[in-house]
């Protein structure tokens, strides 16, 4: 298995090179002019201003030359400077990644736990009212657009009931704890500021629930289907015949085996949400990678677009590898080679 993991690790940089190259050429050949977000519409008719901006951002060079320069810089860890934020893209991503990870981890926790519980219950009470209700909840979660559920839940819980805060990671009137990890929950604990920790959790609840609901929908249906399959196996009948309690049968015998296919989905969902939580981040003004990607795309911010692509690509490649490894641990019959 070690050789397998090493081989996969070695292939990651090569795959990333391919991803970077495709992203570079697609973004640079897309119709549109990024200079408009740098010098504004009015100055686009001023040849001096256009020439100056092109020279400053290296856009006056030919595409192959720009590509070679980009790769050379990339090797040293320089992802370029964002046209929009005027900061190094690597720094922007480091600032925004913890916000996304904090949201995605919370959503994955909420979604996967709720999804597994719901899936197990639905399978256990197959074709009963409980199963139908669980199916409805799952379908609503996986089919309701986040931009709709987000706005509705925001309206109900923040505006009408006033139970939860509005968009943002932290109360705008409060002072956030000093940034150490970028995870507000962790940073507030490190600072020993439990009020700030409460604030961070308070602001995390609604976006995590909205995003987690989608995850829950997918997971619960998958767990239900797997559980039904597993529960019909001989070894489950044997376990019950030996007098094992129902909870033990469900959790120890059935769920462990039913979770194997779910691992794949969880791995890919996590990777997808790193860059795919765009709508949730936009609605909840969550300053993460998703909203950064949207801004970058709208402004044709080439360095930022490629930077986000590298993060998204890496997330998929790594989660894919980790999922394969987790498979081997979860099911001893699977051998990685």
């Amino acid at each position, binding site marked *: 298995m070690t050789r397998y993991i090493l081989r996969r690790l070695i292939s990651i940089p090569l795959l990333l090179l391919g991803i970077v190259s495709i992203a570079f050429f697609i973004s640079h050949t897309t*119709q*549109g*002019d990024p200079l*408009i*977000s*740098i*010098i*504004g519409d*009015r*100055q*686009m*008719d*001023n040849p001096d*201003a256009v020439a*100056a*901006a092109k*020279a*400053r951002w290296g856009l006056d060079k030919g595409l192959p030359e720009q590509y070679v320069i980009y790769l050379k810089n990339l090797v040293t860890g320089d992802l370029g400077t964002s046209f*929009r*934020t*005027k*900061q190094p893209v690597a720094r*922007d991503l480091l*600032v*925004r990644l913890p916000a996304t990870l904090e949201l995605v981890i919370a959503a994955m926790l909420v979604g996967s736990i709720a999804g597994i519980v719901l899936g197990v219950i639905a399978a*256990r009470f197959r074709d009963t009212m409980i199963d139908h209700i669980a199916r409805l909840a799952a379908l609503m979660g996986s089919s309701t657009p986040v931009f709709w559920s987000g*706005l509705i839940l*925001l309206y109900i819980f*923040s*505006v009408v009931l*006033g139970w939860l805060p*509005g*968009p*943002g*990671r932290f109360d*705008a*009137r*409060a*002072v956030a704890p000093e940034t150490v990890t970028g995870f507000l929950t962790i940073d507030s604990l490190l600072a020993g500021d*439990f*009020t700030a*920790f*409460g*604030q961070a*959790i*308070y602001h995390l609840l609604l976006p995590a629930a909205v995003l987690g609901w989608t995850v829950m929908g997918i997971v619960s249906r998958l767990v239900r289907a797997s559980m039904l399959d597993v529960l019909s196996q001989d070894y489950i009948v044997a376990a019950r015949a030996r007098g094992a*309690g*129902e*909870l*033990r049968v469900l959790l120890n015998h059935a769920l462990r085996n039913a979770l194997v296919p779910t691992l794949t989905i969880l791995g890919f969902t996590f990777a997808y949400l790193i860059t795919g939580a765009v709508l949730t981040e*936009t*609605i909840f*003004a969550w*300053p993460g990678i998703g*909203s*950064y990607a949207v*801004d970058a795309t*709208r*402004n*044709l911010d080439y360095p930022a677009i490629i930077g986000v692509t590298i993060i998204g690509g890496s997330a998929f490649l790594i989660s894919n590898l980790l999922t394969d490894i987790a498979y081997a641990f979860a099911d001893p019959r699977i051998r990685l080679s």
Partner: protein
Amino acid sequence: MKPALNRQLPSWTHLRLAAALCVGVSALAMLPEGASAQDSTLVIARDIDINSLDPSRAWCDTCQIYMSNVYETLIGLDKDNKTLKPRLATKWEANADQSKFTFTLDPGAKFADGTPVEAKDVKWSMERLENIKGGASYMMDSVKSIDAKDAHTVVVTLSGPNSEFLNILTAPYTGVVNSKVASANGAIAAPGADTADKAESWFMQHSAGSGAYELVDYKPGEELRFKANPHYDRTKVGVADIVIKQTKDSVTQAQQLESGNVDVAMQIDPDTAKTIQADTVSVETIPSYNFLYVALSPGAKDGGKLLTKEVREAIGLALDYDGIIDFTVGGAGRKIASPIPNGFPGTDGLTLPQQNLEKAKELMKKAGHAEGFELNDAFPNMNVYGVDMSLLNQKIQQDLAKINIKVKLTPIEFSVWRDRVKSEGIALTTLFFAPDYYGSAQYVQYFGMIEGSPWWNRAGGKRDASFTNPQTETVLTKALSASEAQKDGIYKQLAQQMIDDRIIIPVVSPDLVLAHGKNITGVRYSACCNLMMDEIGRQ
């Protein structure tokens, strides 16, 4: 028999459940009860569109607010949005032909670090604005030289008369920067600054102005935080700490205002404003100087040739202006006669446009297009000043169908639109404009059929010189050397010329919604500066 789920629970499961319960209860106990934080901070909801916080490179609506409040200009604009008032310059005088201006600086003005604002800073800031070649550098196009006569006297010589130069100096982009601090951080004002200057990254996190506020922190996509400048004493600042919070859309801004999470919401559209019910919120709808317009480019490669002057006039007459205002902003907007907004010099007495389908059809027939034709309409797919551009163009499509022009709508990203309008032109499109300062010359220089003007280029002036209106340049030169008393009449001629050119057809000037908590005072719309934060207070 269905087995009970709680049968044979092992003891460790009880322990885990108990531990989880404790964690949950502890977390709930730590949840804040509403606004437990510093209530003194004023929160403004806005979709932040910053392209730069470098005073010489900034060019956006939020940049306008930032610049107005962090950097002081020599001259300010009074609350009537017309009268010039002293700011850094306590007095100024112009020579007879308005080509040379002498400014006397306020000796008490200080930057946020406590150092005095001097003539050398004014000279440095203006030169840097010109040499950086950023979004607003065109404002310095007419400047020939700047001399710092002494610490508090600046003389600006122009390459020709410009009666609007003082108005230009109210534009926030002409704000004065602490040259010593900026230079120490890589800023350069001399020629060549466009590539040699390295200060933009520094400016994104620091400010060096003498305005009412200084920058505390800028987190792109999240917030822009200010604190009061302790050395500012031109007015009494009402709120010490202000944060502009990223809030994307109108509905969310309204919700946040109603729930008390924000104090001011800047981009609520008139339709959403009607839904606000909270009695803690004040909503006022006022006329603005912003407008949206249809632009016709006879030199465009995709069907521009069809747009003869008669056809352009027919299009202008086919549009249902009142219907457009109802359809796009629920009636909360105004008609506008020319590409100079109502209330600016030269607009009094102009005839507002009116739909006249009979005359429009007659003109189409005269032009040999009684059966009509197809026309491409590519427009930026965005929401501007509360107007959904898609809705606006759908209405235009409906109106033009009545004179048999079949409009094909193509919504595109703004950067793509800009690329296309520059390279091959777009026969029919829609766009928007907001003033940079109070003055009409900016509109003529932008929309007039003067060689080299942005819309002369886009309409196809380079390909066909017949689009040039030679009178416009002559009259504009006259306007720029006119006295205050003469200005109105001359700009009226220019406005009429632009109406007759039928290249730019303004369709709606949307009203502006001022929405804020009832305990908030001093929120107003400034024609130069958008929002003056030092005037805002809390009851």
